[in-house]
């Protein structure tokens, strides 16, 4: 029996859990190929026009594996944390897929909902084995094994690994950061599905590392710092990714000297609802203090790399010139040269 998992959206956040769970129960996992032009085109064709890029890519991944598998795993991630939500499109993902793509195999659509004080984990596990002939006790064991595996994966991401490498390793591993000849450090803010899908973000992280810049992402920043700075918002941030992004953004603004951050890149997809609030909030705070270069890169269905390359290069060049001028050349607004 084969279970198909689309390599999109929260794959980069949860895959070790899903993989360990089903392999532990003796099922074969079929993963869709890495995003490519064909998948993107399929997604654009099947999805509604107004949806954002990651959702379209998810549609493409489903379309590309639906004929090769017996079951299709489409999680409904309503909430990843207490009192928080994800984007409404993730909450309604199974419905979107079911009504836009024809001839689907049986869908496994567990509801991951940690929003309330009381979490019904048993129900989630029962949903995960809904169409499968599996003993519930066995499934519970597999789930806890999966959670352990997921923790190791998250730690590896925290230590600076990319998901592709982190998925291959089963124990915690410290990456040798000093092997990079580091010209500077950049904070890359983005949702995991934009950040780690190397096709849709045109390999942004690798490009920056090749230019000699160490990239720091939300996954490299400790949860305590994120929560402390996100708590400074006048209202509780009710999106998990929003809390992480705003928390790390404000953290970097406040403690930029200690972290040695030279600039912030916000990678968002066209018409992303969450980013319209998050990116704008961070940008306003950076602008007011005029201390950090900030750029917002927007990605969509277009695959021309030259435009995004030019913008990255210009941004890096500006940072370098700013450094050469002893940080006194403002990247924004009035000149604050004081000599």
């Amino acid at each position, binding site marked *: 029996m084969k279970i198909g998992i689309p390599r999109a959206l929260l794959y980069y956040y949860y895959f070790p859990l899903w993989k360990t769970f089903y392999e532990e129960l003796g099922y074969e996992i079929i993963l869709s190929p890495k995003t490519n032009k064909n998948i993107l085109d399929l997604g654009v064709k099947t999805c509604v026009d*107004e949806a954002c890029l990651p959702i379209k890519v998810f549609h493409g991944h489903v379309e590309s594996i639906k004929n090769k598998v017996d079951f299709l795993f489409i999680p409904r991630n309503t909430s990843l944390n207490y009192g928080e939500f994800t984007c409404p499109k993730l909450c309604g993902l199974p419905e979107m897929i079911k009504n836009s793509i024809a001839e689907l195999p049986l869908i496994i659509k567990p509801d991951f909902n940690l929003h309330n004080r009381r979490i019904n984990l048993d129900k989630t596990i029962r949903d995960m084995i809904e169409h499968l002939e599996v003993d519930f006790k066995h499934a519970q064991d597999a789930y806890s094994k999966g959670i352990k595996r997921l923790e190791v994966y998250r730690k590896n991401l925290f230590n600076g690994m990319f998901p592709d490498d982190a998925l291959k390793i089963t124990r915690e591993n410290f990456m040798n950061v000093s092997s990079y000849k580091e010209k500077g450090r950049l904070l890359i803010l983005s949702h995991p599905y934009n950040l780690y899908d190397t096709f849709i973000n045109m390999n942004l992280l690798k490009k920056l590392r090749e230019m000699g810049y160490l990239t720091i992402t939300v996954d490299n920043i400790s949860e305590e710092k994120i929560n402390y700075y996100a708590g400074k918002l006048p209202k509780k941030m009710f999106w998990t990714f929003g809390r992480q992004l705003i928390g790390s953004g404000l953290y970097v603004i406040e403690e930029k000297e200690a972290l040695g951050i030279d600039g912030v890149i916000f990678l968002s997809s066209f018409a992303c609802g969450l980013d319209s609030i998050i990116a704008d909030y961070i940008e306003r705070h950076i602008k007011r203090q005029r201390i950090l270069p900030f750029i917002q890169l927007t990605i969509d269905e277009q695959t021309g790399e030259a435009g995004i390359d030019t913008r990255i290069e210009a941004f890096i060049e500006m940072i370098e010139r700013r450094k050469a001028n002893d940080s006194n050349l403002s990247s924004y607004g009035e000149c604050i040269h004081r000599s």
Partner: protein
Amino acid sequence: MIVTFPHMGNVYIGAKVLMEGLGVDIVVPPISTDRALEIGSAYAPEFICAPLKINIGNYIESIEKGADTILITGSDGPCRFGFYGIMEKEILKDMGYDIEFIIFEAPEGDVKELIRRIQKATQTKNIGKIAKQIIKAQRIIIETDALDRRMLNIEAREMEKGSIRKIRKNFKNQTRNVKGEKELKELISHTSNKLDKVIINKLHKPLKIGLIGEIYTLIEPYINLYVEEKLARLGVEVDRSLYVGDWLSEHLLYRPMGLTKEFKIRKAGKQYLDRCIGGHAWETIGYAAHYCQSGYDGIIQLLPFGCMPEIVAESILPSIQKDYNVPIMTLVLDELTGETGYQTRLEAFVDMIQRKKERRERYNA
């Protein structure tokens, strides 16, 4: 303290009754116009939904008239509306206005804080007095909604085209000038009398179209380019799924007690979407199925560009359309919507359902 608030359909009438009754100075923002939207689009983030852009425009126009405190409601996600208050404050701060915001919500379930905020906005500690005034305001809103419904119903059937339009325009202009609950009630009954005198073409059997979608674009006539009037002028009877009054009584009265008036609606759309995913996606799907079941000829969904819950609803609607064989059209609205293209689409849609209906009648006969 001079308070103001953003426009949303008939909300301003209720706010007037509530605040004037309690003796609070209030500035009703000028009716949303292109100027308001232009101000909003210039200063708001690019991809934020259109309601926030118009809100900013409303605030600025009110501030020009002397307002210094803004009232707005809040929510707890997952829709973006929950962050409107915070974002709008930031935007106004960057524009150079230091304005106080009072956000009506219970932060993390803290009801006492909500009561404190209401007391602050109304400048009285007397909860009984506030509650009494809220009930009065709510009644006026419901009466105005009923009047709106009646006008739409008659407009599709009127003998002399344009007579309802004149009455409506008159009514909207006068509501801004009258003071207090009593005068408003008189105005409503006066307008109601005028409606009685409109001559109706009883032979005309109009097409029926249901309007579904995001609440702001449904209720605020400026952002939806007066879609109801446009359709009524094409001789179509329109039913709108959400009204301010119903929404308020649902969320202020029924939901806190764990009840809902929308049980029937939820049941109708159960097989398509069985949970709340934020915004009004649930209601949109429910009402779509409900309209299909009650024999409507067509359905139009309205959403502001980028509205997350409505995009989910939009991708479910084709299944409902297929199952019930009722045409559904989606109109996306933002600051770039052109009126001519919009009118053309509405006319084409009405023509199509008209022909569909005729064909069905001929084959059945």
